[in-house]
């Protein structure tokens, strides 16, 4: 148990150091453009899975929280020229509040209704942004981010490193939650809310906490985007495709442990990055659709579940 923690911490530090090293060693910036997208998916998948995987509440509108993060950050940058760290914290807070609102919904509705309500949240927020002139409305908002610090080599490298740090922290947080009493409580209430309650689990509080943490991290994932793309628009910030991918990744990897979303994200994002430039985008989307169907039908516990099943079969 302890040894695993040490190994994980060491792994996390290695990833960060490798990221930092790569920024200085790899001259080709494309690596970081593509890397940003992949790391962003890791954050999104991990964040989503805290509520969707551990607690079993399906947030079908992760794009609402991501978009809220994107726009919070852009708003602060435009209004005050706030530094990225401040924007990330602010996006996290906004995501947390929205997450708590979603958590309130779990009191009233469950299952499909919760999922549908979260879809509604995306459209509502997008409509609101459309009608706020200051945020550029439907026109979008082009902002040039301030110069990055010198140690980060370049702008893209800088946001890549920031996002990498966020990703490492998100995964560490997800892992901690999973292994702590909180994760146990969440999984217990996923199995049976009534039994969990009767085992002394404060189910309501835990659900709210999961919604808040998941919401905050989803929003944080969007905070650096304006620095990356220099331009945001409602269509990209509240993108249906992004939401879909966010859900698909943990499902492909496996929702029960922190490693599932990470594996799913690395896999899907890399394949998509490669596919964008090799095969037609239609086939790209078709691939995601088919992957979803195949995984639901054949491997409901994702790649990790599949691997475990195979291992058990080999032992038996």
């Amino acid at each position, binding site marked *: 148990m302890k040894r695993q923690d040490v190994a994980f911490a060491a792994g996390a530090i290695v990833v960060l150091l490798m990221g930092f090293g790569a920024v200085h060693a790899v001259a080709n910036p*494309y690596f970081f*453009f593509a890397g*940003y*997208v992949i790391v962003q998916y890791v954050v999104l998948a991990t964040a989503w899975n805290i509520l969707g995987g551990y607690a079993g509440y399906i947030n079908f509108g992760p794009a609402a929280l991501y978009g809220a993060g994107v726009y919070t950050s852009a708003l602060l940058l435009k209004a005050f020229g706030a530094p990225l760290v401040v924007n990330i914290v602010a996006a996290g807070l906004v995501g947390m509040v929205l997450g708590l609102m979603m958590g309130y919904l779990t009191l009233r509705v469950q299952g499909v209704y919760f999922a549908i309500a979260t879809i509604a949240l995306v459209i509502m927020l997008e409509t609101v942004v459309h009608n706020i002139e200051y945020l550029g409305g*439907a026109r979008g908002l082009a902002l040039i981010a301030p110069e990055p610090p010198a140690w980060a080599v370049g702008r893209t490298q800088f946001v890549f490193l920031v996002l990498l740090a966020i990703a490492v922290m998100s995964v560490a947080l997800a892992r901690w939650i999973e292994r702590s009493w909180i994760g146990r409580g969440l999984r217990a209430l996923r199995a049976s809310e009534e039994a969990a309650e009767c085992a002394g689990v404060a189910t309501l509080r835990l659900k709210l906490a999961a919604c808040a943490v998941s919401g905050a991290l989803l929003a944080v994932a969007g905070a650096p985007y304006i620095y990356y793309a220099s*331009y945001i628009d409602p269509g990209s910030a509240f993108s249906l495709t992004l939401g879909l991918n966010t859900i698909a990744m943990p499902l492909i990897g496996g929702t029960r442990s922190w490693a599932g979303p990470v594996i799913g994200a690395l896999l899907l994002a890399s394949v998509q990055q490669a596919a964008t430039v090799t095969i037609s*985008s239609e086939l790209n989307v078709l691939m995601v659709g088919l992957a979803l169907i195949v995984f639901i039908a054949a491997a409901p516990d994702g790649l990790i579940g599949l691997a475990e099943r195979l291992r058990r079969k080999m032992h038996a």
Partner: protein
Amino acid sequence: MISRRRFSKIAAGTGLALAAPALSTSSLAQAQPIKIGTSISLTGPLSGTKNALTGYQLWRDDVNAAGGLLGRPVELVTYDDQSSPAQIPAIYSKLVDVDRVDLLISPYGAVLSAPVMPFVKQRDLFLVGMFALAGNDTVRHDKYFHACPWGPNSQVNWARGFFDLARAAGCTKVAIMSADIEFAKISAAGGKAISEEYRMSVVYDQSYPPNQTDFSAILRNIRAAQPEAVFVCSYPPDSTALIRGLSEVGIGDSVKIFGGSMIGLQYASLLANIGPALNGIVNLHLYVPEPTMRNPAIDGFLARYEPLARAQQLDALGHYVPPFCYAAGQIIEAGVKGANTLNHAQISRYLHANPVQTIVGRATFNELGDWTEKRVLMVQFRGIRGRDVEQFRQPGRQVILDPPPLRTGELVAPFGAARSG
């Protein structure tokens, strides 16, 4: 390698270029190609512009047939951006950092090019702009050259033609409606600015969601405001629905001129689809087959485009996007040949100093890379009958009202009369 390059340089420099076609098959094939990179919206909501690729390809074929650039063949490197700005940064980085392209062309429109602008500014790269309104106004990059004739200060000016016509027709009250889409919002803002400048009162100003299918409420509200000019900034899906709404609920007798900035009324499928209901509408275009526009170059281009379009199920007319893609190539061609190098600074310096003759007209660039002269057309649809696409290849159906040097007819007003006529 070096010697071959030097040879090409000498060849080009000493007027041996005339002999280049003869050399092309042997030496051109061996030369290191010049790579030109861009992204095209092959999929997604902007995939109506995917015929851009044909425009680029035709130019590439022409330039290679004529011996290439600097004695080297031209090669296109293109990716599908799925109409999504989120894809753009990675694609352009890949073009520059992985594919090592020599020159860049922007993706289509303001939304997709917005993420490219800071990138080229930071890397100090040459970029040919495509269709973005006011694309360089924020970044103010000195190596940006627009292939489209929006003209200077385009955000405000590019639709000025419509308001010039409205003012000439004596309009004082204007209604502005726009889709919740970047391009439409920018044009609406420009329209508002000009209305103010011309002291017209804006009696209606609202936007609607991009997929609005029923315009009866909006049209009734506009009719209630009794405007004389209606400036419409719409996108393909709603353009059709809006025009249908016009026939169904009408717009009132006060309106003298209607249209302005409706995207979609340049596409063959939409034009054919709407048919006679187009009559009377005054709308922007960049090329129509009117006598003042035609020349052998563009005619030849369109003649070659047509069979390709049929084979690949592209827009049958190809008036809107492809000629300007060809022109983008011509701008690159002129810059590279003129500066006789692939050095971005030198190409830019050359293009700032010299006009370029393209198949869509002569382009002179200002300090922001916009054409010094606005050459957006305001055309009025006349005598459209049935749903045959061929009629849009004939003169007299899309009469040019503005700019004056290209004019082929006068505004027919009021709008009601123009519709029935």
